[in-house]
């Protein structure tokens, strides 16, 4: 169980940090409200608003950023995998066309698929 939690924390450190920060922010918000509600003097309430309310706002903002950053990292990794797969496929297509079997069948090859085009496809140039 502890190993599982440690594994999750290691792999999802940003989301774990986000949840922690938002939780601490909510606690700070509650404590700030508790302190401000104990007095009716604005001069005594303002420090609670700042230490509770603004601190909570900062923590929640940082927590939200951590969570959204984790989403962006996930998306980036997926695109990375897709990009790699696309390059592999392009290389595979290129080598297929260069084999004898396809070369024999490529009599009706459109003129746009010359060696130059294949090279550009393989190197990812446009």
């Amino acid at each position, binding site marked *: 169980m502890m190993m599982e939690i440690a594994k999750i924390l290691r792999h999802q450190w940003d989301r774990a940090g986000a949840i922690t920060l938002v939780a601490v922010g909510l606690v700070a918000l509650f404590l700030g409200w508790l302190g401000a509600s104990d007095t009716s003097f604005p001069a005594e309430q303002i420090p609670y608003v700042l230490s509770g309310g*603004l601190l909570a706002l900062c923590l929640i903002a940082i927590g939200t950023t951590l969570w959204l950053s984790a989403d962006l990292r996930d998306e980036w990794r997926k695109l990375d995998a897709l990009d790699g797969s696309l390059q592999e496929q392009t290389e595979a*297509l290129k080598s297929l066309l260069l084999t004898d079997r396809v070369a024999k069948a490529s009599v009706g090859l459109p003129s746009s698929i010359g060696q130059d085009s294949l090279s550009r496809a393989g190197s990812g140039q446009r």
Partner: protein
Amino acid sequence: VKDRGGQAAPGVEPWRPGDLVMLYLVNAFGLVVAAVGWYGSSGTGRFERQAAWTNVAIAGTVILATANTVWLMAGRRAVAGRYRRIMSSLASPPLAAVTEHLRTVTPESPAGEGALVAMPSMRWYHRPGCLCATRKAVVPATRAAHEKAGRQPCWVCHP
């Protein structure tokens, strides 16, 4: 780490290495400014002075929020840019033409009416050999069935 197109080069994450350090620094600065505002405000009982220190604390919060927003927008922009590059390379004439050519010359990939494939969640239907459909749990169906499901022909393989 920028390429000549001004886009972040592919790495482990969508931001440049220095961006994270900058985010930490600006966040720390914002927190320090907010803490100074709180400290100044709690050290006086005069409302006018407290209001001034409150403004300082709010300024720190705004700095922090701006830094985080810029960070997220930069990440979002990098992801969108990379997505666009991948999609445009899929639609590049050599790749699309090779896909089309292989479809016509490879005997094991006939392009009959029932051979058009798509996933239930897809917006486009594809030829079986299309790059957009490889390594996906696609199911074959007729063109009419795909169009009835609201799908459109893929703009890479042009089924």
